[in-house]
């Protein structure tokens, strides 16, 4: 694995996240399912890392495990996840708990869920959903909220009036963009996005992908994008990690993975991508 620093100078570690030997198991009545097995992965500061892999390969499980949102019967059975937030001492994400974890969340580690109907609180206005997270973690910004929220919305191509709306008044794409804006509101070190575009139309998917790329440019966040769509990876990410049956089979630069896959499974994956004869327009 390449260890070339990609983040800003002055950070202690070139990596935002170092996952070592992560095992996640779901215990079911029919025995345990190992959804993630012995996974080692380092996320570089400032990069967009794609996680690819077929359905059921454990991508979502990895995401929720990293976010510490894993619910029973899922359980992390082994491994460590070293997280290096900027300006703070590194922590093992799997060990922190309670208040410590809560403080870490969003200001350092945020989450971009699938843009489904249900991630926004249906009874709160969009602006309130911004406010509560900002005030929670950065109360000092209270005064500037009035301009901060429109600015964040503008960043993802939404009008300020969206702030006054309720989630059910928004389309899927708009919701997804609101989620994106919320995700970067506190300029976290790392944003984990689980299938950020899966539920959306192609046209909107493209817009969202553009905005995601913008986020990195504008906020310098590190992004971990989970998707089963190789097209998304090809268009968006710097590096791809390919998962298969809970294992990481290949990590590499996006070009290298697409042009010269090393692992036989990756090769198969690339081959099976439906190709269009040509690009329209």
């Amino acid at each position: 694995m390449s260890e070339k620093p990609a983040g800003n100078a002055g950070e202690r570690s070139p990596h935002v996240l170092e996952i070592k030997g992560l095992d996640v198991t779901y215990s079911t009545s029919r025995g345990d399912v190992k959804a993630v097995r012995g996974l080692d992965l380092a996320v570089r500061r400032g990069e967009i890392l794609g996680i690819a892999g077929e359905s059921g390969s454990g991508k979502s499980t990895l995401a929720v495990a990293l976010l510490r949102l894993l619910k029973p019967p899922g359980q992390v059975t082994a491994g460590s996840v070293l997280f290096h937030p900027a300006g703070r001492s590194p922590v093992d994400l799997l060990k922190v708990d309670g208040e410590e974890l809560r403080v870490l969340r969003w200001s350092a580690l945020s989450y971009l869920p699938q843009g489904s109907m249900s991630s926004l609180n249906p009874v709160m206005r969009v602006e309130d959903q911004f406010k509560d997270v900002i005030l929670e973690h950065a109360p000092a910004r209270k005064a500037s909220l009035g301009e901060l929220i429109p600015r964040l919305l503008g960043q993802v191509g939404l009008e300020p009036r969206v702030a006054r709306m309720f989630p059910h008044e928004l389309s899927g794409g708009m919701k997804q963009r609101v989620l994106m804006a919320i995700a970067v509101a506190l300029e976290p070190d790392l944003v984990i996005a689980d299938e950020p575009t899966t539920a959306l139309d192609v046209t909107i998917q493209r817009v969202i992908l553009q905005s995601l790329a913008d986020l990195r440019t504008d906020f310098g966040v590190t992004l971990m994008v989970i998707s089963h769509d190789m097209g998304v990876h090809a268009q968006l990410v710097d590096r791809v990690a390919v998962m298969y049956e809970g294992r990481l089979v290949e990590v590499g630069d996006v070009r290298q993975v697409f042009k010269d896959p090393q692992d036989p499974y990756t090769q198969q994956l690339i081959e099976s991508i439906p190709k269009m004869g040509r690009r329209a327009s």
Partner: protein
Amino acid sequence: MKSELELRGVEQRFHARGVAAGHITAVDDVSFTLAAEPPQVVSLVGQSGSGKSTIARNVLGLQKPTAGSVLYGGKDIFKLSRSEYDEYRRDVQPVFQDPYAIFNPFYRVDRVLWKAVKKFGLTTSRSKGLQLIEESLRAVRLEPENVLGRYPHQLSGGQRQRIMLARVHMLRPSFIIADEPVSMLDAQVRKHFLDILLDFQREHGMTTLFITHDLSTVYYLGGEVMVITKGKIVERGPVSTVMHEPSHPYTKLLLDSIPQPDPDNRWTNRITVDELEDQEADAKAAAPAPETPII
């Protein structure tokens, strides 16, 4: 003698208070024919809310259109005799969009397959049935022992969708109405699935109405394509023609939005979809309210 499925001037309106007209037209004067001979794949593409699923429901006889008719073998499917109806049901089968809701959470996933076996009399013996099921599961690259006996929530979306494919594989109808069957699948399974569909066409002579918003899939399948927006079919023709020389601006936009699986061929220009957003938001506003019934 195999029959034809024909839509003639189908229009589907839904009541919707809160929009000026009092209703929305989800499907607007749609006509097309699906022929069983020769077997073909016809794709229907369009963005979310354009009326694709509604057409599928019309064709499947789940929803009676407000105007126009769906004809099977020249007869209105809502006026079939008992035996004609049986034949129609046997011949026209769906693969639905949402692999989560397609399973009754109360039952194991096996039931869907067994039900098909029993309802359509595929075989009477239990062991034969099981054999059939396992065969079909393998055909969609599922290990029978991994899925049989499980409850839907214990399977991933992809696994569930593939079970639905296995069902169709088992039934081998003349027409498959596939409503976004691959949107939840990863590329590999998707390709495999599409291959199966093409196989079905070739080997079992099945005609597929393939509904999707994904043009690359359409391209892969080939055959004919219809582009739908706002309930109207705006463009139709052989895939190669439509893809290479799109004439409707909407088709162009669609084509331009596909993420190419080639890192060297990244988008350079930006698109804006504000007008789309508006459209979509309108459609949303018109849709029935979420299930929070007033008591």
